[in-house]
């Protein structure tokens, strides 16, 4: 909310500069996001000296003045009675700008040219002088001086962020009250605003009061605990005086008319929303506060028509709703320039009810903002009273007859009794970690309480009606801390107690994956969880049903990613479009699917390999394209701690993103699918505009984080030397390596074997391939003899011949 520094000073005798005030506010818990300085509101106005005054040749009540501004003489037409030769006066020369937005031009008034304007206080937006007419300055005022620097009122406007717990500070009085507690200075007594203080001296004599013409009935006392109506007769609704308009403009409001402006003024002044109805537009003799009926609607002051629901509280006349309670008034009953009789509402509406309606209809007003945060039911009468005084003064018709106001009708079906908060000062100290003397605590709380009673060691704190947020000793502790200053809270060393943090298997797994993938050249990606329907379509996996967002930021962020692969494809494509075609990226994060009608999220790790690796060409190590075996190797190495895994052909789930011939699902020994890896499907690459083949993997970390194997026991290394033999065989192309490996597995004394060469070509013959296997023989108990190794080798070869049709390749 915007606060005018000058306005605050109407309540509080402070002369702290606005910058310092803003720092103090921050340390009290009110962030000031901006400070604007407002100029005097007019420019081009100088001090003039009236040389001569003549009667206007063509008008009885006008004067023709010869004025000097120190450098030149001007001829100015003026209508004020107090104009006299020799006076020093503010002169708005041609080109001057006045606070109401008016700029002075050369004009002919009744046939005589006027080269400017002699101004009144009101015309300059200043506090009016005791009498009407032009502002007469002291005779010693230097002629030609800039009137703005002499007279102009400057102001600072502070944009203060009032937290939701402090609706009592959503007004100038409220914030001034908070500061008065903090600085321990008394608030000034509430008086009429400076702008009209002097003229209020001539307040109307008490005329015969009209009797209230409307009955007030509250049908839903839970939603409206108080309603004060006050009727006014004999109003003149027109533009507001400049001081009022400027006040409203300083806090960001647009002046509308004096009646509406007064309600807005009181809202920013005291924090209590008001509404003015045109009394003659209200039908029937009763004003009802009731839930809306189904089918009812209201054309509101914003020009829109709202369909109402029974959950909305409305103000209704004999024909139907005339306002949405606490939110917005109706247009047909609003105050206009023609209004002469008005009904002023000052009510208390329940926060939740106002909030529900304001949300539902999407209407946020200064009024609803305050009601939904909570207003002070006690302040309703003060606000009504203050508005009445202003209306009587400012809405008087030109003939000087002040408006008549009826006695207020105050209907109050509910009165909330608020219990005292009982607290020992020691309790406050225990919360804050302070050692404040009891008197200090009692004194501080006393400044903000309705009343504080000392009862032994206990304080009975009665919260003021505007502090609904104070309910517990913790709330009072915060008040004490705020006002003594959080910088006065001691800084205790962290309450360290020997305490071993519990290990977290998921985090351990994630760190280990990050470490390994980092070492293998993968950089870590972080992606948004939101994807578009187009992204989903480009994945081409219709069986992955994504979770939908009810209120997405935009249509292209309406779904949650069903697989991490979609994020990596996006990232690869992003990089590729920027010339980086060779990337290795991985991401650890959540993906989301609808499973059995429920939203399921799962933690995964996925990686993508595009183009060549290493990423940059090197004179010695030539990059090579990433292929199926690169990604398979990554996955095998990653999963090494999880024991033996099986790679199985599958096109389900994530596996559907992979090349049908060069993609595999990964399963545990028990057959649980935990991921997939391989080359990405060529159609997918095309849809994502990736020109190079790309490989990828994805793993389900929820499955992997489950208790990993116990640490495997140490195995003693053989002290005997290994014997290494290469075995080259030829088999049919269709024979898989896994079949060959199966034959070798049980070979006597064979410690390990690795395929070291795979060759197809004319030497071998069509439909054949050759494999060279390096076999390492080793025993734990003794040195092997060559003859034993040869026998094992022969046995293996015999099994290969039988099971795989292998033939020993002569080399």
């Amino acid at each position: 909310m915007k606060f005018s520094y000058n306005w605050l000073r109407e309540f509080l005798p402070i002369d702290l500069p606005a910058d310092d005030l803003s720092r103090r506010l921050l340390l009290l818990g009110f962030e000031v996001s901006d400070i604007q300085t407002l100029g005097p509101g007019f420019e081009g106005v100088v001090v003039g000296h009236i040389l001569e005054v003549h009667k206007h040749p063509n008008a009885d009540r006008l004067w023709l003045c010869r004025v000097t501004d120190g450098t030149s003489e001007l001829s100015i037409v003026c209508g004020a009675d107090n104009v006299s030769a020799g006076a020093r006066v503010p002169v708005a020369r041609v080109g001057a700008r006045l606070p109401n937005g008016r700029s002075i031009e050369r004009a002919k008034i009744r046939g005589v040219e006027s080269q400017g304007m002699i101004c009144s206080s009101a015309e300059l937006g200043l506090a009016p002088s005791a009498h009407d007419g032009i502002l007469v300055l002291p005779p010693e005022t230097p002629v030609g001086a800039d009137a703005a620097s002499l007279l102009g009122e400057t102001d600072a406007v502070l944009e203060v962020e009032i937290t939701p717990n402090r609706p009592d500070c959503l007004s100038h009085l409220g914030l001034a009250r908070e500061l008065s507690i903090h600085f321990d200075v008394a608030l000034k007594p509430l008086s009429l605003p400076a702008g009209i203080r002097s003229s209020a001296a001539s307040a109307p004599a008490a005329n015969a009061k009209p009797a209230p013409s409307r009955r007030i009935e509250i049908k839903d006392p839970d939603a409206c605990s108080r309603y004060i109506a006050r009727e006014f007769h004999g109003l003149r609704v027109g533009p507001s005086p400049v001081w009022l308009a400027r006040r409203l403009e300083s806090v960001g409001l647009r002046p509308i008319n004096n009646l509406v402006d007064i309600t807005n003024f009181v809202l920013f002044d005291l924090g209590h929303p008001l509404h003015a109805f045109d009394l003659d537009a209200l039908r029937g003799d009763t004003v009802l506060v009731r839930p809306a009926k189904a089918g009812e609607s209201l054309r509101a002051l914003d020009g829109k028509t709202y369909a109402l629901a029974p959950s909305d509280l409305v103000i209704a006349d004999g024909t139907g709703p005339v306002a949405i309670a606490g939110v917005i008034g109706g247009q047909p009953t609003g105050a206009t320039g023609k209004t002469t009789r008005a009904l002023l509402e000052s009510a208390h509406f329940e926060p939740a009810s106002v909030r529900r309606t304001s949300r539902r209809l999407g209407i946020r007003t200064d009024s609803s903002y305050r009601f939904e945060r909570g207003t002070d039911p006690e302040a309703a009468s003060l606000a009504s009273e203050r508005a009445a005084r202003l209306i009587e003064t400012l809405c008087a018709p030109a003939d000087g007859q002040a408006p008549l106001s009826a006695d207020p009708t105050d209907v109050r079906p509910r009165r909330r009794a608020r219990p005292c908060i009982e607290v020992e000062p020691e309790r406050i100290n225990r919360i804050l970690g302070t050692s404040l003397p009891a008197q200090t605590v009692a004194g501080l709380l006393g400044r903000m309480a309705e009343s504080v009673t000392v009862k032994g060691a206990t304080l009975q704190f009665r919260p003021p009606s505007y502090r609904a947020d104070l309910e517990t000793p913790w709330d009072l502790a915060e008040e004490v801390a705020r006002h003594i200053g959080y910088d006065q809270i001691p800084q205790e060393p962290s309450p360290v107690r020997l305490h071993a943090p519990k290990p977290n298997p998921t985090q351990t797994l994630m760190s280990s994956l990050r470490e390994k993938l980092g070492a293998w050249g993968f950089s870590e990606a972080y992606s948004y969880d939101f994807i578009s329907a187009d992204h989903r379509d480009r994945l081409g996996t219709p069986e992955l049903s994504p979770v939908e967002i009810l209120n997405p930021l935009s249509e292209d962020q309406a779904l949650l990613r069903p697989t991490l692969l979609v994020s990596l494809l996006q990232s690869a494509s992003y990089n590729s479009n920027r010339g980086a075609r060779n990337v290795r990226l991985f991401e650890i994060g959540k993906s989301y699917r609808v499973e059995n009608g429920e939203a399921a999220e799962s933690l995964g790790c996925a990686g993508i390999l595009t183009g060549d690796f290493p990423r940059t060409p090197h004179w010695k190590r030539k990059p090579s394209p990433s292929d199926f075996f690169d990604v398979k190797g990554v996955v095998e190495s990653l999963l090494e701690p999880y024991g033996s895994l099986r790679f199985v052909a599958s096109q389900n789930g994530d596996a559907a993103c992979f090349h049908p011939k060069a993609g595999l699902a990964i399963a545990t020994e028990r057959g649980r699918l935990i991921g997939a890896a391989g080359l990405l499907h060529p159609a997918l690459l095309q849809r994502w505009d990736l020109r190079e083949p790309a490989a990828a993997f994805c793993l389900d970390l929820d499955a992997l984080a489950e208790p990993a194997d116990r640490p495997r026991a140490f195995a003693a290394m053989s002290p005997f030397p290994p014997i290494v033999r290469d075995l080259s065989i030829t088999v049919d192309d269709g024979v898989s390596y896994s079949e060959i490996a199966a034959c070798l597995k049980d070979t006597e004394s064979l410690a390990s074997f690795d395929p070291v060469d795979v060759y197809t070509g004319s030497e071998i013959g069509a439909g054949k391939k050759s494999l060279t296997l390096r076999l390492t023989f080793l025993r734990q108990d003794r040195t092997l003899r060559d003859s034993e190794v040869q026998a094992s080798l022969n046995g293996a070869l015999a099994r290969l011949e039988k099971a795989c049709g292998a033939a020993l390749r002569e080399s």
Partner: protein
Amino acid sequence: MTAKTDSKAWKESWETRCREAKESLAGHATLEALEALRLKYLGRKGSLTELLKTLKDLPLEARRELGGPANAQKEEILGLIEASRGSLEHQSREREIAGTRLDPTLPGVPSPQGYRHPLTQIIAETADILGRLGFSWAEGPLIETNYYNFEALNIPAHHPARDMFDTFYLKLAPKSPEAAGEHGNLLLRTHTSPVQIRRMESARPPLRIISPGRVFRHEAVDATHSAVFHQVEGLYVDHHVTLADLKGTLHAFMQALFGPKTRTRFRPSFFPFTEPSAEMDVQCLFCSGSGCGLCKRSGWLEILGAGLVHPNVFKAVDYDPEAWSGFAFGLGIERVAMLRWGIPDIRMFYQNDIRFLEQFP
């Protein structure tokens, strides 16, 4: 031949061969020649070796007389050979080194190197610091219910504090209706605080947890706002925990994160789930408090939100607020990373531009 003549002849022969060996030792030029020489004289079938074997056929007296000096001479020759070998090897190495042709200014072969995301690094760092203060890592789902995200955290339905947390809702509702609340649907958690509730529900105090993770806010994305971001949140519950404990812990945390000279400022704030609530600022890392564009001329940077756990939060998890007290705090990871590295736009964290990612070794 008499024994005497034999001894004499043996001695002459020995000395001749020794002399020969020494002479040829001086003349050789290569390691190979040296080895040939060694074999010729002192190998298994070398002439000195052979002769020395015949010493045993001489009379005892001659053996006594000749044996000692002969062995000494043999050792001497061996020593000379070894010395010569050392010198030749040295020369050979020197030649090899001198002959090395290499441009050492060519770039080395890079080891494969990937990079942990800057946000991971900050999360790890904060978790490490807080781990040393005894906090354990706790996790929770990103898809949450109204209850855990709001109600249990003292943010009732229709409360204006909800405005602080613009929320993404899913089209799906939770299966159990009691989890529904104001808005029946599931939502994406707006803070990591639901983890506090879940943990307190399943464990008795004392507790010390952190819950780093991803959160979501329904707000328009720009250079400083992201609909997806990360928080690290801490919760400490024990007997007699005070605001002063919180202040001290946060100060220590900030000094560990931003350096031992970091100055902090503790000031009031509002969060529905803490009372009293606070924020901690650190003195601007760039201008050291004199005021710059980054700190909006204030000299301070907002970093942490915190407070003592609200009694209503304790009531929601069935902890007695009179018996237990605690504090909670949270900070935005992206903000710390942006400050740490001077990153101007929060969206960079989520573009995965390899040129960005490779800047954070």
